[in-house]
């Protein structure tokens, strides 16, 4: 990192947890503010520049999910959010991502895991801001013959049959969809698609791209979705349309 130190706001009602998390993040070179509830969170956001919010879901009073939704609706909508969920539950994850969280960690989490997630989200947000306004409310994204369900993480063909994607395929497709008609280098793609299991992710981007092409029905010659740009990278060549949440 250069002269800029990332500023993380940790919001948790449990004093010990937020202090220990804060200490760990500080020891790892981040600037940290702490908040015990939504009110303190808003006060901090209004008075200083925050690069990322770590938000506990289970809090008395206004819980993390509704705080996250309000954050997305207000003037701090660009601030990335990592949720601390109390449950290892699909619904929490899905609701959290629908509410606009960028990622989540499940309690009990390790501080190393949280730090890795924070860094990945900040890197993603900084490296390549999406040039497509994918709002949190749009659950379905349409391109070509396909519709992508962004919460269930599968592709739907015109007949409505679902083709589930692996985590890496989904992340890669999201990166392409978030940046249509834009040439993305292999390095950019690798950085943007590194997700939860970054340390063990050793598949080459080319292999992942060919897997995704196969899934989308792109042939070796006829590439109607992901085109290869010689010595530069790849470009997603289809126009992308967002669909409302309850289509």
């Amino acid at each position: 990192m250069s002269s800029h130190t990332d500023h993380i706001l940790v919001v948790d009602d449990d004093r010990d947890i937020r202090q220990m998390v804060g200490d760990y993040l500080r020891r790892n070179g981040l600037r940290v503010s702490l908040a015990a509830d939504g009110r303190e969170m808003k006060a901090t956001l209004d008075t200083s520049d925050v690069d990322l919010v770590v938000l506990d879901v289970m809090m008395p009073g206004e819980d993390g999910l509704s705080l996250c939704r309000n954050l997305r609706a207000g003037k701090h909508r660009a601030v990335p959010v990592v949720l601390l969920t109390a449950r290892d539950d699909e619904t929490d994850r899905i609701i959290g991502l629908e509410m606009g969280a960028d990622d989540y960690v499940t309690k009990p989490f390790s501080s190393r895991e949280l730090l890795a997630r924070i860094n990945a989200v900040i890197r993603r947000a900084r490296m390549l801001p999406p040039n497509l306004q994918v709002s949190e409310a749009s659950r379905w994204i349409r391109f070509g013959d396909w519709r992508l369900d962004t919460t269930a993480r599968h592709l739907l063909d015109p007949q409505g049959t679902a083709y589930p994607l692996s985590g890496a395929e989904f992340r890669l497709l999201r990166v392409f969809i978030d940046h249509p008609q834009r040439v993305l280098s292999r390095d950019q793609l690798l950085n943007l698609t590194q997700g939860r299991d970054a340390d063990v992710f050793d598949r080459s981007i080319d292999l992942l791209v060919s897997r995704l092409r196969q899934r989308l029905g792109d042939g070796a010659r006829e590439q109607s979705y992901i085109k290869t740009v010689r010595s530069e990278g790849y470009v997603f060549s289809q126009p992308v349309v967002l669909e409302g949440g309850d289509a």
Partner: protein
Amino acid sequence: MTVMQSPRWLPGTLRARLILILGVGLLLAHGLSFALLFGERMDATRSMMLRNLYEDVPVSVALLEHLPADERAAWVPRLERRTYRYLLRPAAAGAPLSTERSRQVTGLIDDALDQRYPLRPRTVSSMPERYEVELTLADGQPLTIEITPAPMPVATWLPWVLAAQVLVLLLCVGVAVRLATRPLARLALAAECLDPAGNNVPLPEEGPWEVAQAAQALNALQARVAAHVSERTQILSAISHDLQTPITRMRLRVEAMEASPSQDKLLGDIDQVSQLVREGLDYARSASVTLGPAIHVDLTAFLESIAGDYQDAGRPVQLLQGTLASRDTHPQVLRRVLQNLIDNALAHAGSAETQLRIDGEGRACIDVLDRGPGIPADQLEAALKPFHRLEPSRGRATGGTGLGLAIAQQLTQALGGSLRLSPREGGGLQATVILPEGASRTIQP
């Protein structure tokens, strides 16, 4: 379920038994009273005929006696009755009287004629019975009384009325039996479909008193089961929530300590505790999992995505060449099932394979295969029970909580399918998720 042994000749269903008892009983009673009535009527007509005969024969004989011989032939037809007539000829050849009734009739005729004429009775035919009684008039002409006993003819509508009666009878039996057995069938169905999660449509508490009572009892039972299950889930989930915060604190604290062997051990213990808390909660939830609407899923792509996730995480999971199929299902829940089975295989064998195939009945089956130590045949079923551990080969050493397979089993049931464990050919374990018959569309490879 044990069924009480009943005699072999008895039909199996209550409906058939009731129909048998009521139908046979009512028909028997009906037939008996009809036979009695019929006999009574026969008796009445006979005695009426005998009385007629007794009064009629002396008058007719006296009339013929007084008529000039040449006028008798003209009068004979007028004297004819339903069961006997007069003939101006000797009796036909025949056997002596053979039946009690013919002798009785002959005696009656003899009495009616004050035994003034010697009678020569003959049986001319026995089926139908016909006999002739010959006497000689004063002027020497033979006179024969031909008797053909016959019951009063039955009205032509009688068989129809009889048939109609039997029909009404059987109809009533049918309605009554249906009334009695249908609520039973409904109760059985409701008990069978009882959803412990409490998503039950209560049985209508109506109908005859006993039926309403039984429905009420079943509804109360449903409510109790649902309350019990939701209480269990709530307790487990409360414990789990309340434990997660202190476990998180413990973890963060231990992580902040100086690196040491005891730190590693503590972290290992915390991992184990948190896994148990998580899976205990999963297990409690799996009994009452709520399913959204099913979606049509390409199962091959589905299995590819799961294998891909494991491969990306550096775990050796392979999708073997299999059939192509798609089914209506709940992919999130099915994914959890397969993850549990694959995790189990990875824990015991280090690697796993998955395969999609269609069984003989057209159901989609997903196999999760490993080459681990396997499970002894006599413990395959027990292995699906919660907290079941197979010592020592599949014991705590592998770090399992003993809940993974039980969760998979519960979730498979929630999907309407079934989970089966079997030894894999050539060693290892084969876990098969059999999906319910559902809408499937053929897909082109």
